[in-house]
């Protein structure tokens, strides 16, 4: 791998004709060039202290450069710990150890195979009969039975991912901050965790920044189920009762419809009448999300505050699903991005999280847990919570005992 490969690979995501999902991530790059065989110089439009973290995005892989210095992404050649043996889309990907991997001694497996086992019972049986060594997304209804199996370890991990009901803050009645607050107080999140997610989720506090992220705070006052406060904020908004609709489908997250129905029951006690409109899963992200004033959404989470806020809360961002435009917040976002003093950054991000919590339009309900199981023949170190499967690096980091 040379600097030219890296330049070609990043450039592949840039430009007007880019079809890349990472296009917006690399939009800040004004210039990228190789400086000798081992150095790459990237010039950014503005300061960005988190740029290094953004470069870890899973879309930004390195493939070889062709002679005309475009990226040869079709080759299937990358810099990862494994090379392709056989790949059948929708069935399996069989990989062999890459002998030239840049981390010496890694990976520990000679061969790995990822199987697409969409049926959860089939997945569980494959693990318990020893056909596979690892499974993600255990069946939450039966995982207590799986835990009894002597040969299997079950682990759960709260990641960065969260489920939320974003309100469009430019549409009545959600343009009134007191209406938003009333709705935030009118839901019993613990009840949702218990009943919908069977305990495999952590209650969130209308802050999309997961506790494990640097500079994360837990804003006060905590938004817990409080009928009196909900009624108080409704009165502040000049309303005695409220009727709103929420458009949901399980495409947003598994259990979204049930969650909305439960929300309706909770809110009814505070004089808020929620009409739950069930949408088809097909086309949910086209027709409902960013279109209807109140709907359901999921986020896989981002590893830094800046990344998460820039993607989903900044004014003008393509996926600012709450259409939130808070001058102070947007000003802080720009300041914090190029601020390198740790203390000042922490203060700025704390203030921004407080603003999202108090004023923002997203009812962040829960941080969901990854519940996975593996055979005791497998061993691992500390597990990353960035994504499922040890931050998607299970094949590199785990080993057989």
């Amino acid at each position, binding site marked *: 791998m040379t600097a030219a490969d890296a330049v070609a690979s990043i450039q592949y995501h840039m430009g007007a004709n880019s079809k890349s999902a990472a296009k917006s991530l690399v939009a800040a790059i004004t210039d990228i060039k190789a400086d000798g065989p081992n150095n790459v110089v990237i010039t950014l439009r503005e300061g960005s202290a988190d740029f290094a973290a953004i470069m870890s995005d899973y879309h930004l892989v390195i493939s070889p450069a062709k002679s005309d210095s475009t990226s040869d992404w079709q080759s299937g050649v990358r810099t990862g710990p494994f090379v392709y043996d056989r790949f059948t889309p*929708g069935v399996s990907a069989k990989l062999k150890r890459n002998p030239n991997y840049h981390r010496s001694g890694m990976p520990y497996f000679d061969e790995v195979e990822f199987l697409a086992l969409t049926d959860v019972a089939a997945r569980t049986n494959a693990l318990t009969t020893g056909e596979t060594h690892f499974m993600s997304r255990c069946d939450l209804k039966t995982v207590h039975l799986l835990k009894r199996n002597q040969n299997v370890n079950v682990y759960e991990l709260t990641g960065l991912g969260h489920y939320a009901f974003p309100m469009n803050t430019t549409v009545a009645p959600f343009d009134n901050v007191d209406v938003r607050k009333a709705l935030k107080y009118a839901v019993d999140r613990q009840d949702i965790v218990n009943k919908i997610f069977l305990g495999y989720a952590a209650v969130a506090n209308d802050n999309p920044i997961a506790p494990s992220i640097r500079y994360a705070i837990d804003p006060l006052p905590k938004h817990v189920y409080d009928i009196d406060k909900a009624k108080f904020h409704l009165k502040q908004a000049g309303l005695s009762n409220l009727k709103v609709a929420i458009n949901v489908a399980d495409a947003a997250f598994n259990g979204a419809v049930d969650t909305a129905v439960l929300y309706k029951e909770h809110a009814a006690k505070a004089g808020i009448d929620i009409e739950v409109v069930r949408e088809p899963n097909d086309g949910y992200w086209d027709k409902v999300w960013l279109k209807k004033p109140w709907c359901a959404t999921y986020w896989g989470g981002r590893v830094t505050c800046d990344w998460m806020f820039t993607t989903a809360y900044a004014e003008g961002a393509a996926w600012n699903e709450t259409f939130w435009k808070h001058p102070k917040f947007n000003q802080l976002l720009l300041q914090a991005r190029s601020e390198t003093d740790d203390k000042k950054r922490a203060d700025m991000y704390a203030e921004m999280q407080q603003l999202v919590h108090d004023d923002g339009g997203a009812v962040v309900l829960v941080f969901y847990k990854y519940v996975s199981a593996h055979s005791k023949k497998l061993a691992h170190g500390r597990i990353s919570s960035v994504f499922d499967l040890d931050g998607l690096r299970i094949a590199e980091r785990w080993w057989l005992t």
Partner: protein
Amino acid sequence: MNPIVTTVLQRVGLGVLTLLAVSVIIFAMIEMLPGDFASAILGQTATPETVAAFQRSIGLDKPPVTRYFEWIGGVLQGNFGESFSSAGALGGGHAKTVASLIGPRLSNTLFLAGFTALISVPLSLALGLLAALYRNSIFDRTVNLVTLTTISVPEFFVAYILMLILAVKFPIFYSLANVSPDTPFFERVARTALPAISLMLVIVAHMMRMTRAAIINLLASPYIEMAKLKGLAPSSVILRHALPNAWAPIGTVVALNLAYLIVGVVVAEVVFVYPGIGQLMVDSVAARDIPVVQACALLFAMAYILLNLLADIVGIVTNPRLLHPR
């Protein structure tokens, strides 16, 4: 010309026309699906420009009528086009044609269908004949009861029960049927045993009861009575006198069940993780990989038409009366 050949040619011609009509229906229905491939593959994080660039690159920006004729023109030359999914960075390198995606999946499906048919058809014919022969006996009632039970239980339930007993509690067979092209033949048979058995339990009842009913229906005819009066043994009455006239209805029901084995086993495929064509089609619908969906739908239509044609031919050949319609 031989009347059989004429009839077959007529039927084939009609079949081709039906296929063309089906292709129009398939295309129109897929056009009506909400959502499109570009936004499906790029997901929640796609910007409008990205979606537009993607649609241009796979030709989705052209009007539907143009796309239909491009597609059907390609199909007539044996070219099903390129899969949308592999137009992206998937595919381990180069773009995959629809044929290269469907090929291995179709041969898997045909293997499972053939394997199941090889057990089920002789078994159900034999059971049906025996049940007709020993009508209303304990044997007849038992066979009816058992097959009706297995057909009444949803196939995924049968599949899970079989998996629990034969793979988890008593590990005789594999719980996963994830065969690949380089799986040796005997391992392939062993891995497909459980899905084949569960499908067999589902289809045997239908074929067996139809055989029994067709034979019993004929047993009331005067010529059978004549055969009995001649003093022939019951087995010979059924095999030599009743069965030849029963082939037409039996052929039809066998053809229907074979078609089901090819087009309708997606549930068994999911439960046993068998890489068949049904699963491919479901995945492709979810991903809006339209060329693959269209090709699968067309193949399914073709399977139905071909098998029905076969059943008709069997019916005509075994019943000379149908060859000389008045």
